[in-house]
């Protein structure tokens, strides 16, 4: 059996209210907030990037575990904002975490599902008994062009999962993936900001792939929505995950604990991974979690997790402290639009 | 072997746009040789003090550079110790005579800083700090601001007391034709000037300056004798110091200097100390043994080290680094020039009455090097 040994998340403390962004562009703030279902988004510090965020998330994962970093034999970092076009994020992170040299390092890129692709790849390595422990991280300081629609949602965060086959807090019961060539969101090499295809990012992109992967998983694992306690979906805004949950037959209560998007926006590769972390903070032994990511271009990775008895110890260890996702969401300092532009290197 | 200063000269310090390092060197060295009434042919070695010609100007190897420029085909070398370069070069020159290697040598301190943008100068000056300090984004005003804050927290030193140092030194500088600044200041002027690194303001920081000073040293002469020349070092970065409330290097160099010279701090009539920032003068007063730790600020405020207001020790009659200017490599040599003029009685409007024993205190970085010279009119 393979699954999660430990997890850690990190959200940069700065926030900007969507109403402040809207005001800067003379849009009606209430309309923007209502249409997106997001009140504010996280903003990285001027000296934060996917590397520093990945390190914080991974350190939190190690802090909730007795595992020695040198036990990690595979480290995959998925991001849409790797600091280098050529030079791996994963080895910088590995070095500064003290992982040593005996590991497979790889950087993954696939819009918002680069992190979850890493989970599936590492799960395979563990199942094949090629490695004992692996670390899958999704971390982003998502970029967007000022005045573009994406400016309201692109955020920053990182989540790390230590995967193994011992001392699991959640078993990975089944996983699938659904992929196709669907160019809904892209960025050419050398071009600073990504572009998107407007409404095309909806039905043929997000919904087709999330539904596709979900249906594949339900068939493979022989389960129905009523069999699981929670569902987690990639959150590009507040509306899409609610709509897809409804279509698949999940209830609002099953979805609610994972909806980090309304408070911090869309941290791309960390989005669904953060939703899962928020659920793990409160889940009880035996509960199942249905999780589906989405990456533009396009694809969805689907996972069925089952929480074990070990989660009780982990939750006791975390207590009501800083590592809980809801507490990280509340640890915040607001910035204004000019400061936001400085911190995201646009000024 | 005794060592005396027989010639001393300095250029004006300031923003000298049209003046090159070569011109500055000529003025200082030829002035010092004329003052000594010594011909170039009698000079046996040249010691050059400079910090930034390499990083900012791309020119190092200043020994032969100035030897050639000055027409002194003699053994020549550069001594570098950040802002203590001048004092260290004098120390090296003194030792070269005491050892019997040379009889008569010239020490030239020269620096050209205004050719470059202030941010680039600030970065180059941080070469005097530790790598950790550079990576933290520290500047020299920042490092001394840290010391000021520590002093304020421990001893209750106030913003006004710090500002008074700048006021005093500007007053002294107004009497010095070679000083960079001739304007006098009030405490309010200083406190209202723009903030550089809290709590230090612009007018509490010594300026970026050009200038050169030179001295001629010779053996066994009457006149102004160097009766102590001592150097001490401490850790390069502040975090590694034993204390943030004092410069151990200053205390150590001073201790040895007083001992070798056979004098106490109470016998010093005039002192040029290293006031790169206002707090530095307060620390110097305490670490040189002039006033007890934590008490110097109040003394300065009472005017007890100001020309014309005190019958005792006068500190920084030249205007110090703050008022006279601080071309880094030149400062330590200028301090000797000032003390020599004071002890000879030729300091004009800046004259400290009956000055017989003088002290020059030159510091490198945030206290990593300290050089103390004691001079006496024999």
């Amino acid at each position, binding site marked *: 059996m393979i699954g999660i040994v430990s997890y850690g998340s990190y959200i940069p403390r700065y926030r900007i209210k969507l109403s402040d962004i809207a005001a800067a562009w003379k849009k009606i703030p209430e309309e923007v907030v209502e249409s997106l279902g997001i009140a504010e988004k996280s903003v990285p510090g*001027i000296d934060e990037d996917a590397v520093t965020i990945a390190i914080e998330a991974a350190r939190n994962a190690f802090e909730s575990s007795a595992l020695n970093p040198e036990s990690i034999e595979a480290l995959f970092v998925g991001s849409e904002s790797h600091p280098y076009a050529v030079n791996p994020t994963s080895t910088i992170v590995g070095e500064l975490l003290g992982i040593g040299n005996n590991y497979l390092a790889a950087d993954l890129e696939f819009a918002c599902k680069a992190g979850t692709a890493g989970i599936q790849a590492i799960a395979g390595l563990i199942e094949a008994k090629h490695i004992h422990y692996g670390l899958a991280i999704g971390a982003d300081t998502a970029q967007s062009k000022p005045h573009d629609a994406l400016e309201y949602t692109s955020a920053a965060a990182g989540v790390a999962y230590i995967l193994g086959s011992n001392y699991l807090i959640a078993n990975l019961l089944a996983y699938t993936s659904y992929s196709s060539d669907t160019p809904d969101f892209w960025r050419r090499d050398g071009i600073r900001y990504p572009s998107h295809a407007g409404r095309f990012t909806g039905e043929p992109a997000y919904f087709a792939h999330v539904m596709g992967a979900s249906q594949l998983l339900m068939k493979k694992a022989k389960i129905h929505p009523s069999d699981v306690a929670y569902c987690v979906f990639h959150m590009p805004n507040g509306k899409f995950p609610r709509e897809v949950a409804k279509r698949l037959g999940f209830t609002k209560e099953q979805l609610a604990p994972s909806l980090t998007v309304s408070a911090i926006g869309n941290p791309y590769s960390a989005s669904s991974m953060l939703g899962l972390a928020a659920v793990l903070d409160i889940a009880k032994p035996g509960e199942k979690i249905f999780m589906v990511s989405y990456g533009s271009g396009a694809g969805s990775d689907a996972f069925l997790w089952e929480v074990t008895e070990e989660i009780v110890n982990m939750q006791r260890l975390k207590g009501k402290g800083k590592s809980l996702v809801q507490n990280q969401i509340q640890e915040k300092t607001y910035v204004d639009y000019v400061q936001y532009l400085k911190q995201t290197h646009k000024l | 072997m005794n060592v005396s200063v027989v010639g001393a000269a300095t250029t004006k310090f300031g923003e000298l746009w049209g003046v090159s390092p070569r011109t500055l060197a000529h003025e200082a060295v030829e002035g010092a040789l004329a003052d000594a009434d010594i011909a170039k042919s009698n000079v046996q070695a040249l010691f050059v003090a400079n910090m930034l010609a390499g990083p900012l100007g791309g020119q190092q190897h200043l020994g032969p550079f100035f030897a050639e420029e000055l027409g002194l085909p003699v053994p020549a070398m550069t001594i570098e110790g950040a802002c203590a370069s001048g004092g260290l070069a004098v120390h090296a020159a003194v030792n070269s005579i005491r050892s019997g290697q040379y009889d008569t040598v010239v020490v030239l301190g020269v620096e050209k800083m205004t050719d470059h943008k202030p941010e680039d100068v600030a970065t180059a000056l941080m070469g005097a700090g530790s790598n950790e300090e550079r*990576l933290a984004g520290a500047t020299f005003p920042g490092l001394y601001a840290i010391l000021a*804050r*520590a002093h304020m927290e421990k001893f209750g030193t106030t913003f006004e007391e710090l500002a008074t140092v700048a006021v005093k030194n500007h007053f002294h500088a107004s009497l010095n034709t070679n000083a960079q600044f001739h304007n006098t200041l009030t405490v309010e002027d200083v406190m209202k000037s723009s903030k550089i690194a809290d709590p230090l303001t612009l007018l509490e920081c010594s300026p970026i300056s050009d200038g050169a000073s030179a001295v001629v040293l010779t053996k066994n002469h009457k006149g102004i004798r160097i009766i102590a020349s001592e150097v001490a070092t401490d850790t390069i970065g502040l*975090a590694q110091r034993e204390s943030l409330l004092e410069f151990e290097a200053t205390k150590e160099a001073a201790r040895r200097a007083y001992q070798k010279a056979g004098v106490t701090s109470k016998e010093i009539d005039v002192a040029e100390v290293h006031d790169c920032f206002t707090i530095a003068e307060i620390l110097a007063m305490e670490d040189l043994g002039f006033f007890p730790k934590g008490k110097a600020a109040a003394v300065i405020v009472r005017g007890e080290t100001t020309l014309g207001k005190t019958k005792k020790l006068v500190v920084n009659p030249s205007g110090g680094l703050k008022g006279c200017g601080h071309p880094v490599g030149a400062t330590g040599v200028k301090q000797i020039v000032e003390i020599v003029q004071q002890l000879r009685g030729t300091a004009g409007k800046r004259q400290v009455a009956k000055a017989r024993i003088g002290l020059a205190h030159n510091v490198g970085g945030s206290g990593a090097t300290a050089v103390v010279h004691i001079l006496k009119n024999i």
Partner: protein
Amino acid sequence: MISPVKIWRNQKKIASLVGKTGKIVAFTLIRVPPADFSNQAPYPVVVIELTDGKRITAQLVDWDESNLKMGQKVQTIIRKIFETGDGVIPYGIKAKPL
């Protein structure tokens, strides 16, 4: 640009200093920064005494006015030191208030 070789050599030092707690023993607020830090000012530079007694100098981040005091508890973290255009990125130790 800091030499990539120097950055490489310093990594072990950085890795061993991260995640440590300490308190501020001295501080200043830099308003006029050196060239490489121009986009970050104003920022505090602090001397921290770690719980093991070692002292280090570092930039303080994620701060507000109330954190600039003697005795403020801090933790060491990894951040980018400064932007380097097309050069290797120097990551290093900074501190954030606890």
